[in-house]
């Protein structure tokens, strides 16, 4: 009987570690890009659902990551040749998200261990996939670093350490700023609960970022009826040119 109990306990221990679940709330499940879209802020909040009392081995930490649609990129580097600066080396990055923001409840290195980061691809460099560099480029890593540097400075990649507020090991919330130059697509929101650097639970949902109204109409027209779209652009140009000329004639006569 005692033996059965120890086996049950041994089974229950890892179970209890897994028995923390995320219940998530989002201030908006959909971001609508309208004509006067000027960036947006998403409030991400949630609670930890438990079957047993919270283990007090290590504090609960939370990571929130929002990832935009990925595209392949070409990164070029300038070098000085015969006195002028020209693009020499180019490296193709297979997949780089158009937007990537991470918020954590403590400094990043404390929240998640390197092995867990590798497994779940949480940190910014791990979100970018770059496999093949051409033979003539020996420092391909610096090209990926450049992508991160350029996009971080324009607010497209963000690492907000200690930006997630955790209350009573149960409630958490954070806000993530979406910049004005947002591309459309499905934005993946991932939430990880960690203890002592190990992921104990994760949760994933999708935020829908879409153009609406006039933006939607013009975008669709340009893709589905490019000739009509082009002629429409020209018609507007000619009409505006004529209108300005006519208006000035009337204005100057009076």
């Amino acid at each position, binding site marked *: 009987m005692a033996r059965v109990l120890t086996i049950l306990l041994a089974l229950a221990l890892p179970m209890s570690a897994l028995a923390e679940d995320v219940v998530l709330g989002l201030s908006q499940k959909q971001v609508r*890009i*309208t*004509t*006067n*879209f*000027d*960036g947006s802020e998403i409030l991400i909040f949630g609670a930890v659902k438990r079957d047993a009392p919270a283990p007090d081995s290590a504090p609960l930490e939370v990571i929130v990551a929002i990832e935009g649609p990925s*595209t*392949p*990129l*070409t*990164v*070029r*580097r*300038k*070098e*000085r040749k015969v006195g*002028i*600066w*020209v*693009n020499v080396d180019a490296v*193709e990055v297979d997949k780089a998200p158009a937007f990537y923001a991470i918020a954590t409840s403590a400094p990043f290195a404390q929240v998640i261990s390197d092995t867990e980061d590798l497994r779940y691809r949480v940190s910014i460099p791990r979100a970018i996939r770059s496999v093949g560099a051409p033979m003539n480029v020996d420092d391909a890593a610096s*090209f990926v670093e*450049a*992508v991160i*540097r*350029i*996009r971080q400075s324009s607010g497209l990649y963000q690492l907000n350490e200690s930006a997630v507020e955790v209350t009573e090991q149960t409630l958490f919330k954070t806000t993530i700023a979406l910049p*004005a*130059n*947002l*591309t*459309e697509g499905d934005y993946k929101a991932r939430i990880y609960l960690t203890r002592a650097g190990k992921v104990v639970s994760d949760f994933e949902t999708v935020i829908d970022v879409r*153009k609406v109204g*006039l*933006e*939607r109409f*013009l*975008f669709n027209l*340009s*893709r589905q009826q*490019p*000739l009509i*779209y*082009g*002629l*429409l*652009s*020209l018609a*507007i*140009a*000619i009409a*505006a*040119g*004529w*209108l*300005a*000329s006519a208006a*000035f*004639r009337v204005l100057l006569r009076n």
Partner: protein
Amino acid sequence: MQIYLPIAEVSVNAFLLLGLGGMVGVLSGMFGVGGGFLMTPLLFFIGIPPAVAVATEANQIVASSFSGLLAHVKRKNVDFKMGTMLLIGGLFGAAVGVVLFNYLKAQGQVDLLVRLCYVVFLGVVGTLMFVESLNAIRKSRKAGDAPAKKRRERGWISKLPFKMRFHTSGLYISVIPPIIVGVLVGILAAIMGVGGGFIMVPAMIYILGMPTKVVVGTSLFQIIFVTAFTTLLHATTNFTVDIMLAVLLLVGGVIGAQIGTRIGVKMKAEQLRILLALLVMLVCGKLALDLLLQPGELYSIGAVGGH
């Protein structure tokens, strides 16, 4: 007021774009240049993707050139006959230019070639025009209020066949030089991705010997067709024309062009030429510096396959 552009997928300040459009429109009306060589780098600078900037700029030039053209037509400053000859050559040249561009692209480093092309052409055209106009101004000062000497007709040009009378320009010359000028400008325009006004204007003044006042309107007439064609090509093949961006730019542009035309009419031909020369030299200097100075960020991100 921020406006989100549907094709460029960036949010920009509407008033900034109106201002930029207006500024370039004034230059367009004054000098008969489309302004693409000025506006395109400015659009890059405020964060519009290069492909969208180039295509949309063509659309905006149609509007400001048309606005400027109407103002010149009223003053009878447009030589339609000459414009048509240049246009015939220009369209042929543009087709050759596109073929040449694709060939160079396959060889790599087309970017660098385009930049060097800019620096060399802007530099040569700007300097020659500057020196010539300065001399003209000095001469007219010395001679007091006496009218400027009429330009001598070049011997070989007057000997060519297929002569035609261009009433508005006051010329009786062969149609061959205008067509050749059109072809050459068309080739350059296609390679450099601009309307070509800043090369066409000096070519009309110095090679064809047209009066400066007529040159501006005629150049605008020619530019409308070239840029309209470019706009359609971009819209149907690359999907890069942003109609929202174009509207913001062209509202400023058409108003600017009207003001520019009125400023241009009040100025002397030499002054107009010297200002255009300075402008061309300024842009040339900026491009040369970009090539010579170490850039702040050595790396640049581009779409795969694009450049």
